[in-house]
């Protein structure tokens, strides 16, 4: 696998190399390992300082696991994650804990990610206490400032999470993540559990925070319109692998991988004349099991253009020009998708 190395070192905040997360399947009295769920199976990508990398894919393709593995909340089975020059995957204990000041996470479900026994103030001040960043009056002031930053009233400090709506809770979760002044934030489908009317508010908050604080995001989502709106570059995941990675414009204008093409064709277009002409690529069959992924290209079981080679040889994830990466046998060296390549 060719590793993306187009960016300058100091420009790059996070580098992921061949990251794998396999969950063992244990059976029987002796808990023998009979297999593994290959949730994330060899990812390599960079995240540049100050950018938003969108990560899309259908449910169960390993998006969330990727986010957690980068932050070392989930133990990666193999591969490396570098934060600036620090190899996170080599750290544990106290050094890793100290790194958590620089990278934080916003979880998918704001109904589950806040401890029901802690007041909003306690939730937000916890990171401050953990790293001894502020105490007493200063801590209180800081909490109220953070509440203001995410657009909540300082009066909420002594209330409990159950008194709030989903959108408000997600704001609290964002405030908690921001408390330590991180550089990097993993947003794991932060709006998936919210009402449509609230989604836009949270998205806008996330974007304005990036502008004001110079944050770098890994934004995980399955909603393509949201990803397009928020991302600078987008990675498309299928069954534990990234199949295509490109900047927003080239991905949406010129999708190379058949899976990306199918995904994009599913977005409705708010223009009746264009919508009427829209060609939907409907994929056949279901996503194969990550326990026993297909040989060769993982997408060949559902790919309308699959050729013999796709069944046997895993396509290389390679740069086909201008930082547009794709893993498909049917994309030629010039970065053109050409089904005739198989003939």
């Amino acid at each position, binding site marked *: 696998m060719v590793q993306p190395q187009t960016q300058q070192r100091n420009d790059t905040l996070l580098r992921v190399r061949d990251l794998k997360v396999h969950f063992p399947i244990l059976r029987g009295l002796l808990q023998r390992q009979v297999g593994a769920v290959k949730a994330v199976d060899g990812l390599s990508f960079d995240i540049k300082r100050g950018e938003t990398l969108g990560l899309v894919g259908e449910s169960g393709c390993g998006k969330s696991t990727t986010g957690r593995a980068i932050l070392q909340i989930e133990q990666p089975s193999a591969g490396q994650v570098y934060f600036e020059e620090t190899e996170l995957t080599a750290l544990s204990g106290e050094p890793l804990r100290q790194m958590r000041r620089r990278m934080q996470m916003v*979880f998918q479900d704001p109904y589950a990610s806040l401890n029901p026994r802690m007041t909003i103030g306690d939730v937000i001040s916890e990171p401050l206490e953990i790293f001894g960043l502020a105490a007493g009056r200063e801590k209180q*002031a800081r909490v109220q400032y953070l509440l203001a930053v995410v657009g909540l009233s300082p009066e909420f400090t002594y209330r409990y999470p159950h008194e709030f709506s989903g959108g408000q809770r997600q704001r609290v979760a964002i405030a908690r993540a921001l408390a330590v002044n991180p550089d990097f934030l993993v947003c794991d489908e932060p709006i998936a559990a919210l009402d449509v009317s609230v989604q836009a508010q949270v998205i806008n908050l996330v974007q304005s925070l990036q502008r004001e604080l*110079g944050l770098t995001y890994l934004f995980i989502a399955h909603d393509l319109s949201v990803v397009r709106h928020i991302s600078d570059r987008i990675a498309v995941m299928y069954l534990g692998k990234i199949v295509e990675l490109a900047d927003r414009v080239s991905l949406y204008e010129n999708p190379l991988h058949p899976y990306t093409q199918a995904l994009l064709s599913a977005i409705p277009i708010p223009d009746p004349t264009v919508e009427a002409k829209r060609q939907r690529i409907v994929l056949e069959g279901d996503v194969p099991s990550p326990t026993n992924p297909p040989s060769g290209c993982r997408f060949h079981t559902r790919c309308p253009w699959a050729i013999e080679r796709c069944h046997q040889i895993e396509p290389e994830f390679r740069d086909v020009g201008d930082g547009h990466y794709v893993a498909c046998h049917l994309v030629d060296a010039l970065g053109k998708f050409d089904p005739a390549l198989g003939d």
Partner: protein
Amino acid sequence: MTQQITTPTPPVAPLPSKNREFRRFLQVLFRSPGAKIGGVILLVTTIVAIFAPAIAPFDPLEMGVGSTLQPPSAEHWFGTDDFGRDLFSRIVYGSRLTLRIGLVAVFISMTAGVLLGMVAGYAGGWVEAVLMRGVDVLFSFTETLIALAAVAVLGPSLTNATIAVGISSIPFYARVTYGAVLVEKNKEYFKAAQAVGAKHFRLIFRHILPNILSPIIVVATVGVSVAVLSASALSFLGLGAQPPSPEWGAILAAGRDYFRRAPWVTTFPGLAIAITVLGFNLLGDGLREALDPQQRRS
């Protein structure tokens, strides 16, 4: 990072004092009629236990040759037993023993059980396997049997019986705690706390413990009653409270022989046990609700 989050000084809302929070907790607790009744019962029991010498009209151990098995009267409110001892005085003094047995036994089993369950659930891996299989083995024996074995080793006395009862219900608390810890450990807020960089101590005591308290409190309140009953059973077998001691279970057991002739000898200690147990259960339910912020509607 292009810009730091600076800390200006916005208006700081006053912190509610611990005192006020506690008063609020009591308010919520005693809003439910059950907790009120339970609280009153336990308050009365505690007062009776503390002021037993002032309340009891007779010496609980003083025998009366001419007054055996007398029915309740103005002089002997609850009647007398087969040795002519005043039953009311015995029950009043017995409350001291019963409360002590119940609380000490539950304290022993809860401390050990919760600790075991937490360590097993939190640590996982082989620690979990070793601890929980050990607990399973203990669990497979009847509590009374473990208590009997413990008394056999320690020797028969009320203190040893209390310890034995405490030991015998450790597996119960360990199981409940273990299960609750497993549930909480997989919740997202726990992962969030990990991601924030919380250390083990904080994860256990700030995040897990407050969230698993409810089931433990419920088990503990029921546990007090179970402990009282188990201790009584041991007393009945001659392994707990030794004869002249006015332990409720012992009085009840002794009165069994005269049940038809003198039903009051069994009725009153039985009632005393039942009411005390009820008090613990009612208060426990109230506590469980009051400790859950979601129930704390203002």
